[in-house]
């Protein structure tokens, strides 16, 4: 075998391999531009500029949530040189172990961190920050950062406002491209619902590094820089003073207060008790566990999430439906012999009052028997020829036109719908055709299968105040840069003609304004010169004492406020709910409360021992 020419073949092979390498190098160096762009990205530094978060105002221009300054300590691990751990620990008020632990952590994650700065300490006191600033030069790689944090000048609406906290990985993943580790975002309430408007847009300055890792100059003279855009301010419909007053009234009670301006549907106050204080919001990280573990569940917004039996305030709805259907006329008299007797020895009880009585008086005195007759009339309506199912479904349609049994569509994302029964409900329970008007008689007084949120009740009150329509309750006002859904400007008419409402309102007026001893259930709600119209309710609570319920609006002829109060285990409607709602009305319309004794009694009452914990 000749081997003479083999070295030639080997040399040719060498040439081929060298040519392949050079071709590949030529392609990535000369033909392909994308490596140069990547290199630019590698060698620029972006300095983030955080926008100011929008301020949240109440309806009168008072600041509910503002911004104040917090001081953080950042570290760029690649720039850190050997430093005096003890000295830095003393300056920053931390232990040397903490610093060592942090530095170890950064070392472990160095590839992930790269040339970025990471936040080592958050919200340190201003004194500490100033002390650090004086000696910062001794600790290369460490620097301070001034950052805006939330400030709450008034303790109003903790539950509504929600909190802002640092985003976690799950949150970042859920909003791809919008957040980076270390960013803050609204997590609950208005802060979360209006996050997009509030957060603004981050800006950045791009700098070029030279080969000695020194920042040299703005990249392309700042042509690619972006300034931060501050967040939009949010104006709420809340009246901060009223909200705060409501919270004070509801302290040590479980329940909700909802006040609505009937002419707009704007929510003036929305109290859920127990709630979250704003100083807890300001430092949510520290208080989160305490709030989450509280057996009374302060995070749970009872005003829109709790489904309660409405009790006697629901008589208004039944009365209005009766009038609309023509099965009730205001002058009709029905007897009440301490209740409504039906079947063999069955009775739906009532309290002592005059008998017989007409519709106005039935509202004023909250007669149970009267509404048993009303509901019976509605369901036994000849129009339906004894078909209770059809009659009940018709009743259901009328009721839901008041917003009951549906989500009202407010700007609370977690609103509950409550429930209003249909024929199906009872067909399922008793079988088709095996029930009649007496089976469902507790619906007449707002018990049984009816569940509604306090906001539904406030909305009912606003509907009555408006004589037949409501605006969907909402908490955000349109303002510059912030739009609200046009549906909030539309009147929502019920299926009951407006002509029937004044008859009911008269009864509500008499309940509050007949003077003590006349049998009006809500005389405690009377306020001189304000023509308060109200309706009490005492709803059965299977978990203990009755719930105290009251709705009222005032003034009668030009309603400015409609309010619902629901106090769990509060007893009669007139015991807690009516005085509290009335005090709210007085506070809102008169600016100050004259009935100091009543106010004191309400504020100091403590019903927590009556409430079963979850």
């Amino acid at each position, binding site marked *: 075998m000749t081997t003479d020419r083999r070295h030639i073949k080997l040399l040719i092979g060498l040439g081929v391999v060298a040519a392949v390498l050079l071709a*590949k*190098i030529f392609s990535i*160096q*000369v033909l392909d531009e994308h*490596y140069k762009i990547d290199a630019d990205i590698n060698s620029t530094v972006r300095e983030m500029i955080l926008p100011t978060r929008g301020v949240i105002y109440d309806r009168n221009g008072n600041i509910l949530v503002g911004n104040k300054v917090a001081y953080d300590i950042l570290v760029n691990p690649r720039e850190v040189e050997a430093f005096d751990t003890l000295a830095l620990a003393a300056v920053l008020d931390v232990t040397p172990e903490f610093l060592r632990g942090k530095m170890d952590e950064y070392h472990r994650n160095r590839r992930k961190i790269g040339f970025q700065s990471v936040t080592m300490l958050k919200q340190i006191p201003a004194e500490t920050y100033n002390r650090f600033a004086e000696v910062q030069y001794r600790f290369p790689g460490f620097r301070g950062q001034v950052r805006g944090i939330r400030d709450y000048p008034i303790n109003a609406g903790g539950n509504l406002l929600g909190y802002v906290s640092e985003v976690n990985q799950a949150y970042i993943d859920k909003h791809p491209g919008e957040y980076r580790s270390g960013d803050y975002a609204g997590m609950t309430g208005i802060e979360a619902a209006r996050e997009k408007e509030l957060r603004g847009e981050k800006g950045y300055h791009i700098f070029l590094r030279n080969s000695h890792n020194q920042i040299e100059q703005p990249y392309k003279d700042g042509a690619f820089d972006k300034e931060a855009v501050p967040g939009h301010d949010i104006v709420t419909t809340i009246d901060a003073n009223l909200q705060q007053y409501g919270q004070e009234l509801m302290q040590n009670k479980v329940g909700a207060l909802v006040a609505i301006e009937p002419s707009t549907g704007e929510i003036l106050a929305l109290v859920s008790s127990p709630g979250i204080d704003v100083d807890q919001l300001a430092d949510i990280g520290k208080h989160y566990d305490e709030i989450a573990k509280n057996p009374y569940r302060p995070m749970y917004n009872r005003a829109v999430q709790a489904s309660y039996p409405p009790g006697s305030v629901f008589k208004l709805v039944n009365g209005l439906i009766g009038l609309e259907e023509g099965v009730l006329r205001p002058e009709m008299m029905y007897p009440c012999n301490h209740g409504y007797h039906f079947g063999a020895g069955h009775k739906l009880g009532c309290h002592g009052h005059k008998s017989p009585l007409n519709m106005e008086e039935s509202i004023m005195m909250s007669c149970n028997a009267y509404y048993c007759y009303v509901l019976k009339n509605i369901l036994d309506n000849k129009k339906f020829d004894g078909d209770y199912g059809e009659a009940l479904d018709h009743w259901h349609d009328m009721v839901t036109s008041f917003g009951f049994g549906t989500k009202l569509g407010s700007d609370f994302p977690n609103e509950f719908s409550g429930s209003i029964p249909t024929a199906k409900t009872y067909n399922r329970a008793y079988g088709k055709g095996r029930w009649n008007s007496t089976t469902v008689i507790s619906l007449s007084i707002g018990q049984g299968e009816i569940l509604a949120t306090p906001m539904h009740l406030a909305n009912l009150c606003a509907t009555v105040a408006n004589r037949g329509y409501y605006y969907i309750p909402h908490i955000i006002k349109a303002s510059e840069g912030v739009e609200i859904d046009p549906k909030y400007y539309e009147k929502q008419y019920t299926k009951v003609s407006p002509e029937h409402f004044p008859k009911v309102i008269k009864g509500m007026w008499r309940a509050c304004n007949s003077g003590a001893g006349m049998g009006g259930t809500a005389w405690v709600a009377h306020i001189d010169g304000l023509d308060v119209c109200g309706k009490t309710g005492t709803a059965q609570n299977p978990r203990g004492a009755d719930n105290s319920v009251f709705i009222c609006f005032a003034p009668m002829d030009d309603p400015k406020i409609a309010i619902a109060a629901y106090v769990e285990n509060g007893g009669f409607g007139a015991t807690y709910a009516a005085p509290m709602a009335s005090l709210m009305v007085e506070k809102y319309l008169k600016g100050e409360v004259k009935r100091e004794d009543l106010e004191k009694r309400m504020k100091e009452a403590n019903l927590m021992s009556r409430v079963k914990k979850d």
Partner: protein
Amino acid sequence: MIGENTHQRGLKQSIDWKLIGVYILLVLIGWVNIYASIHSEDPASIFDWSVRSGKQFVWMLTAFGLAGLILFVLPPRLWESASVPMYVIVCALLVLVIFVSKDVKGSHSWFELGPIKFQPAEISKITTSLLLASVMSRQNFKITQWKDFLLAAAIIAVPMLIIVAESETGSALVYAGFIFVLYREGFSGWWLGLIGLVILLFITTLTISPYTSILILIGILTLCNAFMGPRKEFWKRLGIGVGFVALMAVLPWLWGMLQGAVQGHLDWMERVAWVPTARESQTYRWAFLLKIKPLYILLGLSFLLLPFLGIRAFRGKDGFLGLSLAAFIVGVVLVFSTDFIFQNVLQDHQRSRIEVLLGMKEDLAGVGYNVNQSKIAIGSGGLTGKGFLQGTQTAFGFVPEQSTDFIFCTVGEEWGFVGCLVVILLYVFLIVRLILDAERCRESFNRIYGYCVASCIFMHLFINIGMTVGLMPVIGIPLPLLSYGGSSLWAFTVLIFIFVALYRQEKKYF
């Protein structure tokens, strides 16, 4: 002795000064680029002992001293005569290091004696080359004889396998380059081709499928048979081969269609037409045949053909056909064991590196990080580079190991394509010079040793630069003479200068 001197040529004639010139040029280029690759805010002097360029300066000086020692002091005869004991000692060190060394990124290959660290694997390239040259240059050694071939192969394989055991796969891969030495000394080119085929099959099995690999195997074997067979059978053999491969190439597709159709029919009978006897039909009974993978059909058909072709080969005394059939069987075994090797023999990091290299996995943050950053650094250099000390990618430490294994990135970034071209041409010149000098040697020991040196440098060059530009997996081996590190520089200096000394000796006396 004085008398002898009159027959000697002077230093000027006897030493290959061009070779030494290229050597020095490469070492200096390495030194300058090591200096450039140090990322620091305030640049130190290139001689500063506290940074790598300063240390490399010292390694350079000692390496030059070592070169002088080999060239002028040590007797050139020493190398051949001491090749056996040196080989044995170094192999012993290779084994020893596994047990006494610290774990460096999973490998056990460094001796540490106080401040001095060295890898016996570096030295073993020299001793293996020497022993290989010594054995193969014996009078009666013929590589075409099985016994001699196995001896040569064993000399290469022993250190190679120990180094694999040290988890230094990269260094072990360099030993594969000795195959070129064997080729030069008469080893069949077919074997070289066969090794290439094995690598091809390995890659296609992993990246495409075993089916494709076997198809490629059949295609290549039939093509070879067409070319090697009698001229009058050329078209017949080519036609049969191409036809079979083409048919088999569409088989998986046809098979899929048939499966779909039959399954559709069975479903229709059972679910739509409610044929009560659907399960007793012939179609149903034989439908299981469709579950056979096309791969096994291909194999079945091929093995049915084997005895027929075997008889043909035997009757027609067609040795090449017989060998092809054997190669086919071996190839099939290889393809099937490839998956096994890939999953069980290779280590996790090696497997993932191969996966990234073969494009089976895109992972820029993990294993692919090195290659991507390295390509960015080289790619950003453009045609003429950013200029000395102006590189940002290597200097900021984006590229890992930027002064050792990835030193070529600094060349690429700061000197651009022009710099890369110059460096690669210098290496090509070095290797060409080594081969041509070796060819001029009269003693086969010198020639074979020269080829060994050329092969080692070639393998390092190809693997290292291939790695930095993404043609090879990330295998940590240095770029000869350029990379930072005393142990590597000394080893290549000794490797090269033993040849320079041997060549000088030839020139001196002949």
